[in-house]
């Protein structure tokens, strides 16, 4: 019985074991099914997402910086170039002992202890295969030295990059400007952000044409798609999209003239603008003192920057377009034109100058003590009589003077790719009320009549005004060649030809008639006669007491208090081609200081080079020869200067 019971128990257990093995098998099968289901979800359902993630893991985009567009002058002479920047990098994993390698390198090129420590520190922060820049901007000699010694410098790799170089150091600084390493602030203002800006120390335009035409000059970055492994090492290049180099820019500037003008203005705080009176092409635009833009390319030192910033002659300012000065007597053409257009005065009508103009109890003085006597309009321009223009301004009124000023190009900013363009200023009655809360007085109009008081003009605007008077056309200046197709045939001004002829004749007499304010600075070449207008703009007010005691001579005043000297002209008189303005800050009188400079620059342009001394009046020829030879020598020697300053 017991044995039988045991047997049934045993067979019962056997069946139970069977059952449980099958049950376990089913459990295993369902586990496998669960795993399979999960694999299906990962590999089929969500596969696309994971593929993207895998690519994000493995693919890195490396930017290939585009080469920046070059800047040329009107004849194709390069002004801003991309120069090869010789540098060496060090790769830690190939160096063995980087400290030793750096020490050895220091025996070949200059590499002080501090810099070595900095490199070693940088290296520690990065993966061992990342190249670290050891030295930049090496001379070809140093670079060659390193290349020869490479076998004893493991891990050192010589590389050639591109960096901006400005061929004409100082004379173009205010036009072309400069590039510099991108700053965080630049990144904030750039929207949308160009990926190329992510490249550390990428050079972007900071000032001038480099800044304003950044979009054209920069080009598009190429992209190299590389595969990287988990630690970031590049395994291979997957594909490469070629970038696009920046566009080249051709300026309207003529380099030889630009250099001559720069040299002529050297030592002064001055500016000059010479433009073609039909096309408006700016052939020369100079502001002195200048600076070397190459110092900014790799980042300027704080002390150099402070020196530029604190210089009272403001080398960083482009005075030709950003400097706004009271136009002084050069404004008299505007008043004359307005009066003639309105028929308020005839060409033969005369006004008497007694040396002052009485307005109620106030006396408005003429620059010539004792007065000019009776004058026609032509004579008034020639002699720059103040009283005549007080009278005329009063007749025309400030509104109509303003209208004429605007028509002649004052009080407006031109569309030029330059930074810090000043609009100048043409005052109105409404403006004075808003600005000072006082009404416009007749005295204000008188002051405007002789270009003092509230009105302001930049040297560029004066040149444009003169160009418009000389051509009778609405000339607009441009600095980029072929930028404006309409410039070759600008529309005519709404000014009668007879008015223009009268004013031109007055300006001709300034230089070519005995009593002209710039008679001393006439030319003797009959083909190249110059017509112009002097101007002196007061920086300080001359008090009544001072006038009675005798006006202090400009030369005896501190520099900052002296008058600005202005001169604007066009030439040749018979067949006008060019307009030129010269402003010398605190230079004294326009007739003495600005006119001779203008004559030299204008003659240089007319002759296409250093003018012959025969173009000068006999008595001045010796002095002119010395001056011109000196400038010529300086220009020639400067072009041989070693570019690595």
């Amino acid at each position: 019985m017991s044995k039988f019971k045991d047997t049934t128990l045993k067979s019962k257990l056997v069946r139970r074991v069977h059952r449980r093995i099958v049950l376990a098998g089913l459990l295993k099968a369902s586990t496998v099914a669960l795993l399979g289901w999960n694999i299906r979800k990962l590999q089929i359902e969500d596969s696309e997402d994971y593929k993207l993630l895998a690519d994000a893991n493995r693919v890195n985009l490396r930017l290939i910086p585009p080469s920046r567009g070059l800047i040329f002058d009107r004849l194709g002479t390069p002004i801003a170039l991309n120069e090869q920047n010789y540098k060496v990098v060090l790769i830690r994993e190939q160096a063995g002992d980087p400290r030793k390698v750096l020490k050895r390198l220091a025996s070949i090129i200059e590499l002080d202890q501090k810099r070595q420590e900095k490199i070693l520190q940088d290296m520690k922060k990065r993966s061992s295969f990342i190249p670290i820049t050891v030295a930049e901007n090496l001379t070809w000699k140093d670079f060659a030295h390193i290349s020869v010694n490479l076998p004893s410098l493991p891990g050192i790799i010589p590389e050639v990059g591109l960096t901006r170089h400005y061929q004409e150091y100082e004379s173009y600084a205010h036009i072309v400007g400069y590039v510099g390493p991108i700053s965080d602030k630049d990144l904030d203002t750039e929207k949308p952000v160009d990926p190329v800006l992510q490249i550390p120390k990428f050079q972007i335009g900071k000032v001038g044409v480099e800044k304003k035409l950044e979009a054209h000059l920069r080009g598009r970055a190429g992209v190299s798609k590389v595969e990287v492994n988990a630690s970031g090492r590049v395994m291979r290049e997957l594909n490469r999209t070629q970038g696009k180099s920046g566009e080249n820019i051709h300026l309207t500037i003529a380099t030889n003239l630009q250099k001559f003008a720069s040299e002529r203005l050297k030592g002064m705080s001055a500016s000059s603008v010479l433009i073609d009176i039909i096309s408006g092409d700016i052939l020369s635009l100079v502001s002195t003192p200048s600076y070397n833009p190459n110092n900014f390319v790799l980042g300027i030192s704080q002390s150099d920057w402070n020196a530029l910033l604190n210089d009272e002659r403001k080398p960083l300012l482009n005075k030709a377009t950003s400097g706004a000065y009271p136009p002084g007597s050069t404004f008299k053409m505007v008043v004359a034109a307005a009066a003639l257009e309105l028929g308020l005065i005839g060409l033969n009508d005369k006004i008497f100058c007694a040396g002052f103009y009485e307005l109620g109890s106030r006396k408005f003085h003429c620059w010539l003590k004792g007065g000019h006597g009776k004058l026609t309009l032509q004579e008034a321009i020639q002699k720059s009589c103040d009283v005549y223009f007080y009278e005329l301004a009063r007749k025309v009124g400030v509104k109509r003077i303003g209208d004429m000023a605007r028509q002649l190009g004052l009080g407006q900013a031109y569309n030029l790719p330059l930074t810090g363009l000043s609009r100048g200023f043409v005052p109105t009655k409404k403006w004075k009320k808003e600005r000072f809360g006082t009404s416009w007085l007749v005295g204000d109009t008188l002051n405007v009549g002789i270009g003092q008081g509230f009105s302001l003009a930049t040297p560029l605007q004066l040149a444009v005004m003169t160009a418009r008077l000389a051509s009778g056309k609405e000339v607009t200046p441009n600095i980029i060649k072929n930028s404006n197709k309409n410039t070759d045939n600008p529309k005519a001004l709404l000014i009668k030809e007879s008015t223009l002829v009268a004013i031109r004749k007055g300006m001709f007499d300034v230089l070519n008639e005995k009593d002209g304010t710039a008679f001393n600075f006439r030319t003797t070449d009959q083909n190249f006669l110059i017509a112009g207008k002097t101007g002196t703009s007061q920086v300080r007010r001359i008090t009544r007491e001072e006038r009675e005691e005798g006006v202090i001579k400009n030369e005896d005043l501190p520099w900052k208090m002296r008058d600005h000297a202005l001169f604007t002209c066009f030439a040749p008189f018979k067949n006008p081609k060019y307009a030129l303005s010269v402003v010398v800050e605190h230079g004294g009188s326009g007739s003495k200081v600005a006119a001779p400079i203008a004559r030299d620059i204008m003659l240089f342009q007319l002759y296409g080079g250093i003018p012959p001394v025969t173009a000068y009046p006999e008595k001045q020829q010796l002095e002119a020869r010395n001056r011109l030879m000196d400038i010529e020598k300086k220009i020639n020697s400067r072009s041989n200067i070693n570019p690595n300053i």
Partner: protein
Amino acid sequence: MNPFIKIIYINWPLQILILATALFGFLMLYSVSGGSWEPWTKPQINRFFVSFILIFVMSAISISFWQKISPFCYLLGLALLIAVYFYGDTGMGAKRWLDLRIIKLQPSEAFKISMVMALAYYYHKLPASKVSHPFYVLIPLLLIIIPALIVFRQPDLGTALVIIMIGIFVMFIAGVHFGYFLFGGLSFFTLLFILFQSRGKDWQLLKDYHFRRIDTFLDPSADPLGAGYHITQSKIALGSGGLFGRGYMQGSQSQLNFLPEKHTDFIFTTLAEEFGFFGTIGLLIIYSLIVAFCIFSALATTDKYSRLLITGLCMTFFTYFSINIAMVMGLLPVVGIPLPLVSYGGSSMIVIMLSFGLIQSAHVHKNIGF
């Protein structure tokens, strides 16, 4: 019977499936080493073929011999566990390896076999009437829990849990009353609850890194570059494989070193990335067929020892691959369990091949008797 003739009765489909799986492994190891026989493929092939021959040798030896030495195997296994506890090599914060000069052995792996042998022996000898008797339930429980505790102290939580799981499984197959398992299951979950309660207290029962692993398991994205990195990268590799994979040796995740332990525990991800859904499901089917053939073999045997031995060892094999695959998919926390016959590694390879030797021996002798 002539031992050479016995080979005819071997479970040939099983043997071929084992070979097929190993070939999968060689292929993957060749790929993860960047198309080279060194450093992993060649030693793996050598090891495999030596142990493949070992299966034939073992299957020719009578199952009664294996049955007789079972208790000694258990004692030897236990002795090795204790030895590794005192003399083992420390690696990654745990003492798991025993350097036996010829081979670096992981006794906790080998112990799984000897435990299955001992339990099968125990139930083979135990009269059917005593199977569910509480005292006779306690004895095998101790046989399981004591070594599991030693392994846990190494510390190797994963293997300890697997040992317990396999042991309990053998007891279940042996026919112990269902109530015990119900009770055991309930107390297990209670223990789990207490374990989590202990976190951060001075009586904390698990090491911090255990808890961290559980955390990453529960939310791998919380720390994608830290502890969750492995699972995130592994899932990317799996998912990016798609239906057909990226092509042999074309898997960016594995070829570019984004995968951790790509030649050992995470080799499944390389397979998934390079061969896609077809590759992974293919391997899963081969594994399932191995398990299925073992189950058929177990059902066909007449004595209890063979039956429990085959089922237990088959379960060991099953836990290996199912836990590994679940782990790389992020379904289970990362525990150091290799993909059987595919992952590089001598210790696990030998243990798996030994267990197949025993399974084949049981299969060969099922009709021959003792």
